[in-house]
């Protein structure tokens, strides 16, 4: 029987696999957001638990690959804020991943059924 640690590990791997989709979708939804704003937005959603150690390196890589644009805006206190905007390339990737996720989620839901076997 899987332990809670096994489930946690599986859950962590699942979240990391979906991190890119979630980050792109969050930027698209917010229109324009800086790093901490995105972390706070993603943290509000139960089950994701995407922390800054996952989000910031991902943002940097997505920006490097051209899926996100970055603009620096002076902040009244502290360092300039780096605002992220999704690009056309990012939108295409997001659309492809969203389509794939929708299909996968629907298939998994069909396999699992309306109630899980443990509830029967």
């Amino acid at each position, binding site marked *: 029987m899987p332990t809670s640690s096994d489930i946690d590990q599986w859950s962590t791997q699942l979240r*990391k696999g979906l*991190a*890119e989709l979630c980050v792109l979708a969050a930027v698209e939804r917010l229109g324009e957001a*800086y790093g*901490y704003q995105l972390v706070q937005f993603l943290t509000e959603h139960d089950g994701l638990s995407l922390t800054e*150690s996952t989000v910031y*390196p991902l*943002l940097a890589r997505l920006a490097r690959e051209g899926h996100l644009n970055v603009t620096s805006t002076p*902040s009244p206190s502290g360092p300039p804020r780096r605002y992220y905007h999704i690009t056309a390339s990012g939108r295409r990737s997001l659309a492809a991943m969203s389509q*794939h996720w929708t299909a996968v989620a629907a298939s998994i839901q069909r396999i699992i059924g309306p109630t899980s076997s443990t509830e029967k």
Partner: protein
Amino acid sequence: MSGASSFDDQGSDLIDAYLIAVENALIAAGAPRADRMQVLQDLETQITEMLSAQPLPFTEEAIRAVLDKLEPPSHFATAYSSGSKTRESTSPTSLATQRSFRLSRPDWPIVAAVSAAILVLSSLFAMIAAASGPNDFWISLTLLSYFVGFVSTPIALWKAYRQLRSDPAAPGRDLVLKSAIVFGMIAPILFVLLAAEATNGAAPILFGIVAFFYAQYLLLRRLWRYLSDALPTPSSASTTNSASRNAPSSAHPATPMPAM
């Protein structure tokens, strides 16, 4: 840290120590410099915003409380490495490119392992040559396999090292480690045996003298390092505490912090 108008030196040191630890973790994970700078800037913004919720002036406890809410620096390296691995395995746009790239680039850990295996074979051939008496075939095979293994293994190990450094998610780490150990064990022994055979026994004496002085050098260097670490210097007391970011928040510094 930029824009830190309400930090004292100790608080600024704590934040700098954390950011440096994150950068070092990203460097170890092979993150490009541009990525590292972006991550650090985003982190700095987050720290500033989290601190802005604290009352002024920012005490050391308040800064530690904020830093304790952040992920440990090592998590940034793990996330970066696993993020790269995830990207390669799930991106629909880059798989074909990666596949063709990998086909044209040799898998150096495997090459290193094969070269090290050739060295093992050469020692086997040497034993057969010694047991079977003067036999040109086995002697030639021993020399050939030894030459190939002795030359190709360090080259392959170096290439594998660079390959793994540039791509932390690539497999083959264990192969590289084991190949290095095999090369380090077998190559010198065979070299000494062959040199002894060629010089009628004079070479091992020379190697023994060199090895003695090298062992002495290693011993002295170890002794120097031990004494350097064990004997405190006056300038190290003020920097030790501010650099100890990774210690748990409940841990107390080994030495009391100097008054500013």
